[in-house]
């Protein structure tokens, strides 16, 4: 922090303290009748917990050696459950514990790329969670998770949004994820992230820092996936075929590093679209682009079969194009792995991806034994 901002902070905190003091001196007599902030938080978390508990269930699936166990929650009154892909992986069957009964659930669909799985049990009038607007989630917002840790009863946890990330360590998610300092335990993945109005704003997908923080898929993104599953029976991720890079810090304009076209993928509509290498991407599908997150989010929400507008800046001039969205190929771009061992050799296993196939992905084949 610069000295100027430091002193600004000091002045601000001084004003804050003064205000609080004045407020306190006027309200101290009435405070006794009111609850403390701590009590307020308690009652709010309790209220959310009581409202949402009936709609949150345990899930188990058998895959590989040992069963997997996690959490899921109802999103409608017809028995439809949202959970994380990791809770069922590629298991052929899943079971849900609902009102003390163990029920087999139908797996409506799952998508490893987004981390979403959709289940259904044969029950009517199931209590379900209200869906909130994850676009409104901001850093420092207070959020609650309700889920099953280990084989313990349903447990609430409370924390704050610490970030909206598309990057974790050195790699990227498929779309922006909510990072929150809501402590989670094993088994809680697949549970809901709720706001104070008991609305779901996220799906718990990944615990990091030994469970001290959690990554959640925003509910809007999860619903984009479940929409595909319910309408099409499968998930279709879009693909235009443009590779981009973030410009170097020296290229910053307006405080932001530009996103530049760096290469194209073979046999994609992008190559013939008119977009050129070096173009600065400024808009995709009516979403303004100022960071890698925007690129990935636009790609995530683009629907296969549609054509999306793309705007770029070339030599200061804005150029507009329309590109068709194809299904995303299964293979991922070049991976070059180098594994160094304590010895004279360096094992270098290069992998080359075959040209991406335009065919749509086959449903996951499960080994029946």
């Amino acid at each position: 922090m610069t000295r100027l901002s430091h002193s600004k902070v000091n002045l601000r905190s001084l004003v804050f303290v003064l205000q609080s003091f004045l407020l306190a001196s006027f309200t101290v007599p009435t405070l006794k009748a009111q609850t403390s902030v701590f009590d307020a938080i308690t009652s709010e978390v309790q209220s959310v917990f009581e409202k949402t508990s009936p709609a949150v269930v345990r899930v188990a699936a058998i895959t590989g050696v040992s069963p997997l166990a996690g959490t899921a929650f109802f999103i409608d009154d017809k028995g439809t459950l949202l959970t994380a892909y990791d809770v069922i992986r590629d298991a052929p069957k899943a079971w849900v514990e609902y009102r003390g009964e163990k029920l087999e659930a139908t797996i409506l669909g799952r998508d490893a790329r987004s981390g979403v799985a959709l289940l259904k049990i044969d029950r009517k009038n199931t209590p379900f969670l209200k869906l909130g607007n994850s676009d409104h989630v901001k850093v420092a917002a207070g959020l609650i998770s309700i889920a099953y840790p280990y084989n313990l009863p349903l447990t609430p946890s409370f924390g704050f949004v610490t970030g909206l990330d598309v990057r974790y360590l050195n790699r990227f998610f498929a779309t922006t994820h909510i990072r929150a300092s809501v402590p989670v335990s094993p088994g809680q993945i697949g549970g809901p992230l709720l706001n104070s109005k008991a609305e779901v704003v996220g799906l718990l997908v990944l615990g990091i820092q030994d469970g001290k923080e959690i990554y959640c898929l925003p509910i809007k993104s999860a619903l984009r996936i479940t929409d595909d599953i319910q309408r099409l029976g499968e998930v279709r991720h879009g693909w235009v075929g443009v590779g981009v890079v973030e410009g170097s810090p020296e290229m910053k304009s307006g405080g932001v590093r530009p996103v530049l076209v760096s290469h194209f993928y073979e046999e994609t509509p992008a190559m013939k679209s008119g977009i050129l290498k070096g173009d600065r991407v400024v808009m995709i599908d009516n979403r303004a682009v100022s960071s890698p997150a925007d690129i990935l989010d636009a790609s995530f929400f683009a629907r296969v079969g549609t054509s999306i507008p793309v705007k770029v800046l070339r030599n200061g001039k804005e150029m507009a194009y329309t590109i068709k969205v194809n299904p995303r190929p299964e293979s991922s771009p070049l991976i070059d792995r180098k594994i160094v061992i304590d010895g004279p050799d360096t094992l270098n296993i290069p992998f080359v991806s075959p040209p991406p196939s335009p065919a749509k992905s086959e449903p996951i084949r499960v080994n029946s034994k």
Partner: protein
Amino acid sequence: MKNEMIKDNEVNLQKLLQVKRLETPGDAYFNGFLKEFHRYQRADILKQSSLLERLHTKLQDLFFFQPAKTWAMASGMAAVLVVLSLSVAHFNNTTAASSGLVKLDASSLSSEKFQLVSDSTFERDFSSPRYVTGQTPLSYDSALAF
């Protein structure tokens, strides 16, 4: 056609095996491994010291209820205990002290090591399940593209 396939697979056995190196539990597992290992080492120390405590209590009980019989046994046990305590204390000092506070927190509990009272009907049917902690999703890619 079948023979061609067989031949192809003979040649590819080596390559199939090489690719097995890619079978990994994911970055999340490896990123947390060192911490887990430290926890494993600390839990090991605790296990040793709790064993001693239990032995100690048992001996005390024996002593209390059947004083006459246990004198001989007790003196022998005492000698053993002294030796054990000394060696554990030494180990404690060298390892625990240098690896920091020894702490058992809920997140280090594994379902196999503890029998928790459960309200789940799953318990009977799914013994020792793997409680999911999430893995980095398949999209976790180093390439930036749309």
